[in-house]
């Protein structure tokens, strides 16, 4: 099977869908002539021309809204945020228009579109550029929220996102665009709402997504060296969430740790905890722990950033704790 980087898998997904469906277009800052700030749209302008690969001025609210308005007319926009940090200035468009228009119009209109771009901390970008937005968006009914961690998942889920009839927030990672993996040549789609067991195990369930995945896998490796077997579940889809997969694993392991990028209070991490403790109360042998950012704005300095980010070591400590091995 061909080996691709995540950025290539994303590009291929967009390219294939744009070839398949003329209604699909890509819009955002520097997606065209510049080939994307992180090169996820490399070659697409050349291939499809400026009608379908559209550079915008710095107007996140403007072009998010254009995407929404175009989707209501039957087009299928892909809106790239250079990073999801910049979606903060378009928050209202996502909250009040994208998420609600189908409902508000009583189904007269649909909003089939994708907002995509890198999310969460990269490396030393400071507090304004290091935020995890699933914790805001997965709260909102009417949206779907996806986070990817491998080229295979990125391609299969992005194609699904582009074909979905709902607004989808598709979260990538600047740090992981170069991560390589096998991607089949033949077409495939990955359905939403299905978690993926990235590492099977018996003693502790580690639930994770996005940039948390490599952290969790590394932690599981460290745990294995201590004879602690972890099952690493990559949620991939945060809304809808594969509750069944989580609960099945927790019923087996009786212990869970959630590893992710983002602040601790509220957000998807607490959501996972709330579901587990309710749906598997009698199965739990220990509280569900979260390993995420410290509750602090992200500093630029490398040593401080590293302390705040969830690390395999911190995840391991939590895994040990829920397994009462410390």
């Amino acid at each position, binding site marked *: 099977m061909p080996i691709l980087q995540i950025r290539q898998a994303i590009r291929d997904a967009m390219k294939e869908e744009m070839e398949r469906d003329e209604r699909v277009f890509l819009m955002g800052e520097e997606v065209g002539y510049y080939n994307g700030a992180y090169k996820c749209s490399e070659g697409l302008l050349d291939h499809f021309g400026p009608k379908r690969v559209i550079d915008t001025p710095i107007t996140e609210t403007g072009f998010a*809204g*254009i995407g929404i*308005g175009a989707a209501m*007319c039957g087009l299928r926009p892909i809106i790239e945020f250079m990073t999801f940090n910049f979606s903060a200035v378009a928050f209202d468009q996502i909250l009040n*228009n994208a998420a609600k228009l189908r409902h508000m119009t*009583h189904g007269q*209109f649909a909003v089939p579109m994708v907002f995509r771009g890198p999310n969460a901390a990269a490396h030393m970008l400071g507090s304004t550029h290091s935020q995890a937005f699933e914790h805001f968006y997965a709260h909102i009914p009417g949206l779907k929220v996806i986070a990817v961690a491998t080229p295979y998942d990125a391609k299969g889920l992005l194609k699904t996102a582009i074909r979905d009839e709902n607004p989808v927030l598709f979260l990538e990672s600047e740090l992981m665009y170069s991560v390589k993996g096998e991607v089949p040549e033949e077409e495939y789609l990955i359905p939403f709402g299905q978690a993926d067991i990235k590492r099977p195990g018996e003693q502790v369930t580690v639930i994770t997504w996005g940039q948390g995945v490599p952290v969790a896998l590394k932690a599981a490796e460290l745990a294995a060296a201590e004879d602690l077997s972890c099952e690493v579940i990559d949620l991939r889809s945060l809304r809808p969430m594969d509750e069944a997969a989580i609960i099945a694993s927790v019923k087996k392991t009786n212990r869970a740790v959630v590893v992710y990028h983002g602040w601790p209070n509220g957000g998807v991490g607490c959501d996972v905890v709330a579901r587990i403790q309710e749906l598997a109360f009698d199965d739990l042998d220990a509280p569900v722990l979260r390993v995420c950012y410290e509750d602090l704005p992200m500093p630029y300095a490398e040593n401080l950033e590293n302390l705040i980010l969830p690390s395999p070591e911190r995840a391991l400590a939590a895994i040990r704790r829920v397994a009462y091995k410390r």
Partner: protein
Amino acid sequence: MDAAYEAKLRADYDGQSREDVLRDYREMLRIRRFEEAAARAYTRGKISGFLHLYIGQEAIAVATKQAMEPGDRVVSTYRTHGFAVALGSDTKACAAELFGKAAGLVGGVGGSMHFFDKERGLWGGYAIVGNHIPVAAGHAFASQYTGDGRVTLCFMGDGAVGIGPVHEGMTMAGIMKLPIVFVVENNQYSMGTPLKRTLPVEDITSRAAGYGFASDRFHVTSVQETRRRLGEAIERARKDGKPTLIELITYRFRGHSMSDPAKYRQKEEVDRWRLNDPLERALMALKTIYQVPEQELDAIDEAIVAEMDAAYEFADKAPAPAPEARFDNVMAEGPYYGDSATTRPAGVE
């Protein structure tokens, strides 16, 4: 009637047929009577939430309907009943929406602030000030992309022009040369605040140059002048892909919403504007220029009142949405019961 007023009136209606003026009058009156009935229903507690009436601005919606072609789109605000009525939405469905009934324009889920009637060209109905401007630009973008030849007409209040999304939508429309007309309905107030305290300039169209737009600005006193000048802008959008910013100077005779007694303005001011009320002026023209008998005018009014009475009676009697209706239209896949088994409504698997 003083001579100057009469002269202006004659000039306004110069060349218009009796039938045309009657039609315009009738259409404006339909909106007014719809709104008056809404106000009464609100007072009787039949309508809740916010209710923003279009009384005084009716000529704009009527002119818009005439100026646009089938397929063109109107995108507007929470003050949007006027457009619905003018565009031909079923007044029963409109009234039922205000009452939160299943037969409402949007199934009772939107209420007064969120009217949509796609079939008739009413593309909303937006209640967050200014956030429909980028969306409207998106409709115009879609027209450009598909070449469907449609024009989008995007309305907003004078109070909206300071907010960021308006600027961003206009910036995009300007760069992309989208087939769109932006219309500011300057009714002198943003809630309780007169223009001069919310705008750094008097002339809103002074913004047009900064976006590369054409512009126009005038007092709305009659349907036909408004239709003509809107029409020019629509043509410019359709033929040349050049956006226009139009400022329509008008007045709302009621408070901002039903909960606003409008104590911030003097009776004299309101009276002054009443002289320019396009509906009153049309009536005056019909009486004086076209010599339409009182009787005929009364009959028109009665027919309209009867339509509205029927609409509001329908609304009153219509059933509320079924409880399960709340699960509809949230997600495309069908009824949606929430994402977690932990918080799913009782009785739902």
